């Protein structure tokens, strides 16, 4: 048992960077998911986060699990897959899914903040006519773009780092 733990310790010390990248990716995703709800409740609703405590905690738990699964999947692919091309495809897919999620969250955040409701059939009815998405040209929406850009850059950077580390190790 002791030998096993020593082994694990040794593996950790030797791959500290990869492990830290994994943890960083997990934390980034956690912050990305949870801050969406935190900010919309704080800035866009008549409630405080404490008012919706139970619901918020339940959602946070879900996001913790989701972030763990996504980040772990990324780490495992980087560690186990040998071919750089497959890794790059995986990173591309990961980033594409993340970007779709970001766009949805950006528009939905704006819909909730500016129109008081989620994207719904009324939203779709107006979506591509000016008023459905008119908030996207509001000055306040700059904050949405900046946030989305920052998160995307962070995830991209972490994945790239993991890719480089894993390639160097291989």
């Amino acid at each position: 048992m002791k030998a096993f733990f020593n082994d694990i310790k040794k593996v950790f010390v030797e791959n500290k960077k990869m492990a830290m990248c994994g943890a960083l990716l997990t934390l980034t995703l956690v912050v990305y998911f949870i801050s969406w709800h935190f900010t919309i409740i704080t800035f866009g609703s008549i409630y405080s986060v404490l008012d919706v405590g139970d619901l918020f905690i339940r959602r946070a738990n879900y996001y913790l699990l989701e972030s763990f699964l996504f980040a772990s999947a990324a780490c495992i692919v980087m560690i186990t897959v040998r071919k750089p091309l497959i890794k790059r495809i995986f990173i591309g897919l990961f980033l594409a899914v993340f970007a779709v999620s970001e766009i949805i969250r950006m528009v939905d955040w704006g819909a909730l903040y500016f129109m008081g409701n989620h994207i719904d059939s009324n939203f779709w009815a107006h979506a591509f006519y000016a008023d459905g998405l008119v908030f996207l040209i509001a000055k306040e929406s700059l904050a949405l773009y900046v946030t989305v850009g920052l998160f995307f850059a962070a995830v991209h950077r972490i994945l790239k780092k993991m890719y480089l580390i894993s390639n160097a190790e291989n």
Partner: protein
Amino acid sequence: MKLKLALVVICINCAACLLAGGFVYSLFSLGNYIRDKKMEARAEADKKAGAGKNVVDLKLDNKALMDREKTFDAAKTIKESYSKVKTGNPQIYTSLPEMEFFRSFYMFYFLSHQLSSREVTLDPEIVRGFLKKGQLLYSMDRKYPFMKKSIYLDRSRKSYNKPAIRPGTNIVIIFVESLSSFFLKEEIHGVKGLMPNIREMGRESFAFTDMYNSSYPTLKGLIAALGSALYLLDEEVAGTRIPVPCRFLFLSNVLKKLDYTTIHIQAGSERFIGMKNLFTEREGYDYFYGSESLLLDNISRLERGFGVDDEKVFDFTIEWLEKYKGNKPFLLTISTINSHPPYKGSYKHPGSGGNPMLDGLHSTDKAFGTFWEFFKKSRFSGNTVLILTADHAMGNSNEYTSFVRNFEDHYKPFFDTIPCFIRFPGGAWNGVRNGTHCVSLDLTPTILDMMNLDLANPFMGLSIFSERPYYRPDKANLNLKYDEKQYETAKKILGFYLNTYREDRILPRDFKVQLY
């Protein structure tokens, strides 16, 4: 080696999650702790400041219940707290955005697409149910289920105790965006001078005081009022909503038979879901002016919203009327926009508390005020019927919720009572009120009834004077709960409506207005 590394990374990720979770829980506990402390401190301070004045100590023993004042205070506090909790749905802030997105996409596009794909013939039982509510189906042609021979289900009910409109009288109908009647009730909401001009018109006109909007949003509201039809087909995401695929019988179609000139002026886009085409090519309008037509000298204002300002709309209307030299009577319909999210009004009301929805309503009222002053003094005052109503009630925006949260009984987003003021030429019938429970679908049949015109039609509404008193419309209920059978029936009825619209089976292709 790789397996061990994967194990290590998973453990580290797990630890990171636990750390983040711990952080969130700690913040939460800390927040709750601070809040509890603050509440305790406030309660203590209130107690010291003189308990019993503002503090409600709700102990439901006989002694407390016998103290009438205290009990009422307590009940009020409970109601206020309850109202705060009830007038919003906190769950929407914690649901998954991605899930909301895809679900709404599916509901909007595919569900409507599937339900409208085949022709549905309603069972006799359902048809009888419709008739009980004042809607006659399949009376002329199975292919065009809404067509019926008369605007009256029973001609013997035609009322003669009503205002009359002589054919040839000009008609102006103003649809104020999202104007629930509540906003005109200053004595309830307390914002004095919010809409003084519309209120004044209400005082100086005939009014239907219990009219509900039948549809939401604007286009459907206009179709309900002008075409007496519930349009439910909303689909297509690729590019825009599909243009309305069917033809309704609008008031304008009928009045064209009497040689009316027909004009629509609106603040919003004329291209939106092919509105201009619908109005001019199918619904008998001669002229249609939307934001694009009114845009040239109004670019700066367009940038602030998504249509031109209501001031521009009413200025243009006045200009149009002043220039109108035709001998023909006209039907002029106007649709405003300032009170539509994102509420870009030109004026701020001092009592709005920074609520842009109230500023938007106030701006519309100001713009209408200019028109109203012009109209009263103009040559049209003696030969024009002026109707002011709403396209629909206010939607559930944050601005609406935060304003109405203190008036829980009046919190009716989307479907609510809307004003319907009618100023007859020369001020006849001023101040008369009609409290019949009615819906905006009834507007066109009622106007035709007042004009003593009758024709074969696909109207879903009834004349408020003649037949609506016999058929009480359902009040809007957004929280319907169905059992399986009811659900199937509802699905069938929805499919029936959607398919009828999709296949353009409201009016027969060769339909021509024949007035009796």
